[in-house]
Every structure is written in C-alpha cells, then in structure tokens.
C-alpha cells in the first residue's frame, strides 16, 4: 500500500507523481519550523509529566509518597539513596482473594463483544442515515444524536429491572447489551460524520452500476472508513475497558473486570491509594497497546485518486 508509506518516513522510494511520497515530505519540511517543533514538545512534556509522576510514584514506598515529591527520587538516585520498591505492584497483583488473571480474562470477555457489536450496528445505522433517503431520516438522526446527553445513571434501574424480569441479570449478556446500547449514540454520530465525507459521486456511481445498498456498504464505504473505525474502535475499547459502573451494576463477582479490582485497591476507607498508582498502570497497559497497534490504520489518502472532488 503506497499510503502507509507517508507515515514512516522511509528512505526515498521513487513514485509516480500521483503518489505523495516526495511532495509530502517536502511539505513536511516547510512545516517543521522551530516554533512548531517547540510547541509540540512543550505540549508533549506538559501532558506527560503527571503520568511520569504516577509511574514514579507506583514504585515508591507508601511513606515516601506522602512525605516527599516524586521528583526527588531523581536527586536521591544520583546520590545513591533512592528507594524503589515493587511492593505496590506486589499488592496490586497478588493481594486478593481472586487471582488477577481471572480479572484480565473477564475484562477481555466483556470488552471484545462490547466493542464489536455496537460498532457493527452503528456502522449500518450511520450508513442508513447518510446514504438511504427514507422518510423521517433527519428527525431520527437528530433524536439519536440528542440521546448522547442521557446520563447512563438514569438507565440503570429500568435496564436492570428488564434483565431481572428476563432472568438474565448478572450474566455477560446483559453487560454486552448495556455497553452496546450506551455506545450507540456517539458511535452513530461520529461514524455518520466520517461516512458523509465520502464523496457522493463515489456512492452514486456504484449505485448506477446496479449495486444494492448492501454491496455499496461492503465494497465502497467500509474500506474507506478504516481510519474512522480505528479511531472509534480505540475509544470504545478504552471506555469499556475502563468502565466500572456498568460492571458493578450489571455484573456479579464472576464477571467483574480489572477495574473492579483496581477500584478495590484503595481499601475500604480509601487510605491505601498509593497502591492505586500501581493498579492504574497495570490497567493502562492494554489500552495503550491497542492504541499504538491501531495507529497504523490511521492512513492518509485513502480517497486519493479514487475520485475528483
């Protein structure tokens, strides 16, 4: 794929002018003035410092955390007296009645369907709202968009009652279903926006050729939405992975994900929060991997050359 290449700033590869390798790199140079780079570095540092603080904290003994700032460890380490310990991680990882692996399994079992299902439903709906001209379409779309403001908390009692009536409460099914419902308004809204960026002529050309909506959806629209899907997929993954509310209300101890465990680390009276720093890092690793690995679907120029305007 010629498109990935712009990302990687690989050695010069000769390309026909329709590609973007050479000129894209020239463009880059024009932009890289020192001010821009400085600004980027400043933002990166500002955004990273608190996280670094958390990371350093997670390796410090409880009393040190409360008595001196985390930045002092650098000076102490130079003086050869820095104290690092794995105690917090040990507590976070092994100090529970249930094995941590169980929570990881639960997190995965909860998350994968709760990402896949709403994305598929939202993709279809977004396509419907963007490209099928049926009656009441605009009204329905605005209504769904407005539903984003509904706080999840007000839905808990009605949903849980329904699950109890159906006899499926406390199972993974209710958790998947709940997450799917809560994700839909935003998913439809975002994907619809990306979907509308696809040039009308592209879809219409395919329709002229006699393709039904289902074919257009799979053959034309879906491939063009890769970056949008990656972007939304990352967030849906993150939200489900980090969810505590739905997990606690809809689940039971057999389905509890990692967040439940991490939340417990603060202790009954909230006094053990130094352990939280370690727990937070353990819980962060997976979303970060997902983010970095989905990055490569953030590709440029999928539309290049496919259509004019």
């Amino acid at each position, binding site marked *: 794929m010629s498109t990935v290449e712009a990302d990687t700033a690989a050695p010069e590869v000769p390309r026909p002018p329709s590609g973007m390798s050479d000129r894209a790199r020239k463009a880059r140079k024009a932009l890289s003035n020192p001010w821009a780079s400085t600004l980027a570095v400043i933002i990166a540092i500002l955004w990273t410092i608190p996280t670094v603080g958390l990371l350093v904290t997670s390796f410090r003994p*409880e*009393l040190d955390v*409360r*008595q001196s700032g985390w930045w002092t460890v650098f000076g102490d380490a130079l003086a050869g007296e820095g104290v690092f310990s794995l105690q917090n991680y040990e507590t976070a990882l092994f*100090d*529970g*009645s249930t094995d941590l692996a169980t929570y990881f399994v639960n997190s995965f079992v909860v998350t994968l369907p709760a990402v896949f299902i709403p994305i598929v439903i939202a993709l279809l709906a977004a396509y419907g709202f963007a490209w099928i001209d049926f009656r009441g379409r605009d009204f329905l779309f605005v209504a769904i968009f407005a539903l984003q403001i509904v706080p999840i908390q007000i839905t*808990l*009692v009605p*949903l*849980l*009652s329904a*699950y*109890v*009536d159906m006899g499926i*409460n*406390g199972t993974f099914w209710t958790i998947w279903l709940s997450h799917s419902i809560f994700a839909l308004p935003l998913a439809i809204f975002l994907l619809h926006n990306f979907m509308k960026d696809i040039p009308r002529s592209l879809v219409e050309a395919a329709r002229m050729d006699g393709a039904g909506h289902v074919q257009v959806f799979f053959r034309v629209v879906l491939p063009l939405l890769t970056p949008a899907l990656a972007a939304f997929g990352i967030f849906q993954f993150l939200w489900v992975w980090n969810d*505590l509310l739905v997990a*606690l*209300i809809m689940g*039971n*101890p057999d389905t509890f994900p990692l967040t*439940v465990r991490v*939340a*417990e*680390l*603060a*202790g*009954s*009276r*909230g*006094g*053990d*929060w130094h352990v939280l720093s370690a727990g937070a890092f353990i819980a962060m690793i997976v979303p970060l991997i997902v983010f970095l690995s989905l990055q490569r679907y953030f590709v440029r120029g999928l539309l290049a050359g496919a259509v004019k305007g």
Partner: protein
Amino acid sequence: MTIRMASKRRAIAVAATGASLALVLAACADTDDGGGGEDEATGASAIDCSVFEEFGDLEGTEVSVYTTIVEPEAETQTASYVPFEDCTGVTINYEGSREMEAQLPVRVQAGSPPDIAILPQPGLLQTLVRDYDAVLPAPEQVEANVDEFWAPEWKEYGTVDGTFYAAPLGSNVKSYVWYSPSMFEEAGYEVPQTWDEMMELTATIAEGNEGAARPWCAGVESGDATGWPGTDWIEDVVLRSAGPDVYDQWYTHEIPFNDPQIVEAFDTAGDILKNPDYVNGGLGGVDSIATATWTDAGYPILDQNCWMHRAANFYQTQWPEGTEVSPDGDVYAFYLPAIEGDEKPTLVAGEFIGAFTDRPEVQAFQTYLSSDAWANAKAEETPAGGWVSANNGLDPELLATDFDRLSAEILADPATVARFDASDLMPAAVGTDSFWNGMTEWFASDETSQQVTDKIEDSWPSK
C-alpha cells in the same frame, strides 16, 4: 500477641487463618458425627453448630452478602464466616464494593437485591425501609441475640419506626486523640485526664511552636465524603459541652441545628480548630484542615510537627507500615476527655446487617452474625487489629492489640455514655451533605459558627 504485631502482617494473617481453619474443621468433623458440638468448643474458632439446627438442612445453599468492606479488610471478614460455612454447608458469596451505598438502592429498585447487605450506617437502613420498603424485619433468633449481647441503644439504631430490622455488627469508637507516647515522655507531658488539662497542655505546647509545628493536626478531606471527620469533632464536643440529652434532641431535630448550645459547641471546638496557634501541625493554616486528607492528617505526629490528632479507633490501620502502635511506642491514643462530670461521653459508630430475603439459610447466617460466636471468630481472624465490637459476648482477650482491648474496655465501661455518630442519624440532606459542606466552609472561609449552623439548619428537610 505482641510478636504478631511486630512481625509481618500478611504472613501471620495467612498462618492464623490456616490454623484456626484447621481447628474449625476438626471441631465440625466431630460435630457431624456426634450431632452435638457443645463439648468441642475448645478450639480457637469452634462454634456451637447446634444453634443452626432449627433452620433445617442447609447443605449446599448459598447466601449473597453485599458490603462496602473491600480488601484488605475483606479477607478478615470472609475468614470470620468460615466457622458458619463449616457448620452448615452454606456457601457465602461475598461481594465488596466501595460504591455499594450508591448501588444497593439501584439493585433493590431493580428487583435484584443481595440476600444480606452490611449497611455502613443507620441512615441507609432508614432510606431502604422508608423509601423502598425493602428490608425485612429481623427474625426472632436475631432479635434474641441482640437483646442478649447488645445494649438497648444499639438495638434502637437498627430499628426504624418501631420495627427492629438490622442487628449491629462491628463497632467503632470515635472519641480518641492520637499522640506519640515517646514524644510526650521526652517533653515530660502527661496524657490529659480532663478537657481543661488538655487545653492547658495545648497552650503549653503552643508556646514552643516552631516552623510548621503546632499542638494539633486535623484533616477532613475524604473524596466525595469530604467533611465527615469534621462532623465527628463537632459531635464529640456537643456530647461533652451540651450533654447526651441535648445531643439526642439535636439529631432528632427537636432543637434546631443552630440552637445556641450547638453554636457554643462549635465555638468550643473552634478554640482548638480555628486557632492558628493550635493548628494545623505540619499541614498548614486553619484552612488546610479542609483540604488535608483525613488518612494522612495524623502523620505529622511521626515528623514531630504535630502532637495530637483526634480520630477514630480505625485510624489505627492508617498508620504507615512499620509504625508501632502501643502505649509506649510511636503512636497511641487517649480517650478525648469529658468537659465535666464523671461520665465518659463516647462517640460510636458501626455497621448493621440488613436482610432482603428470608430463606432459612439467610436467617441462619443473620443469626450467626449477631451472635457472640461471630464476634469472637472475627476477633481471632483479625490478627493485625483495628477491629472491635460492642457485642458484650466478645472476649477482649481474643482481640489482637492493646489498643483494640482499650476500645473494648471503653465500650464495656459502665461510666461510658455512648452515642451514635449523629450525622449518620440525621436526614441524608444534612448528614451526608450540608453538615459536611458546612464543616469545610467553617475551616476554609471566615464564616462564624452561627453562620454555618444557620445554613445547615436551613437545609433540614421540612417533612
């Protein structure tokens, strides 16, 4: 016991659990054969299994418990259920969540309540009874246990509108002042026995203020419950300056919240807490009380920046690992003295057991939790200490630390006049809202005691 204290908590906890578990297993094995069990009560956690016979054969049944108690305290909770599980063959499904108080009403309304909930305060019980009509009255066996093992006040806290619902479980003693015995000894100070002595000592210490050091330290920050440690301070003083009768009228709103006697109590507390020469050792000025985390607020004692810190018995578990809690160690606590008279006004709190179903195994478990057998089993399963109960069947010798025994002593002392934490008994709009906020405003702004109490009075629900 002292050896336990000094050595590593975790290893001992495991070992102790294992040991008593083995004993219990042995005891119950005997019981199964002999059908009796009274004679085997020699082992550490052996309990009398025959008590549960009247509930029928419970083998294989399950009881779900929902609570705010999470790790590491959850371990000692579940361990204390083992004798019951061994006796009856019931499996206890334990679920702890710090969000339990918010989520229990949701589950109740949705029709999937747990069998039993350990309610951290009577206010929640009242809400569940009055708003959702969800809690079932306590079975007669539980009521009999409570009549036998608990003082009538405690039964009263588990009673709503004349019906007894919830037996008390653990208890907290809140009227403590933490201090450093070694610092006191070095400086030649004595533990004050009266309020006046305490104020004199405070003045003496304040003369030597240096840098950030002050006689007292305090902190009321506690996440979304910020303010509660401040309400405890006020309650302790009301109990001392105005007396238990006024205290009762105060939380039942027979007198208004801004009654002159209450305002006076605020001012008495303010003599310490709003005096920049007396607070806030190692933590800043008066306003820093509003933002200092309650879990760390006593730590300046360890740095010798603070001399006294008023906090409940469970603050014992907040000290950093390696701190020696003993009458001649790094830290210990003395009883917050009375202002006058020989009585010992004491602020207490505790958890309660609410049941939402009435299957025999649930009632059997409720009966167990309200018994002396549970209290003793729990004491044995808490080798690191930090737990006590006002259950008078509790054998103080089984408690892990000197300090826990001191708490048990205070609870059992005939001179003790115990009153439950008033903010837990007031309507939620006051007890978990305006009273908390009022305290932080009192510390963080220039508002007078009168202004703060007026505002809280305004927020009292009219119904």
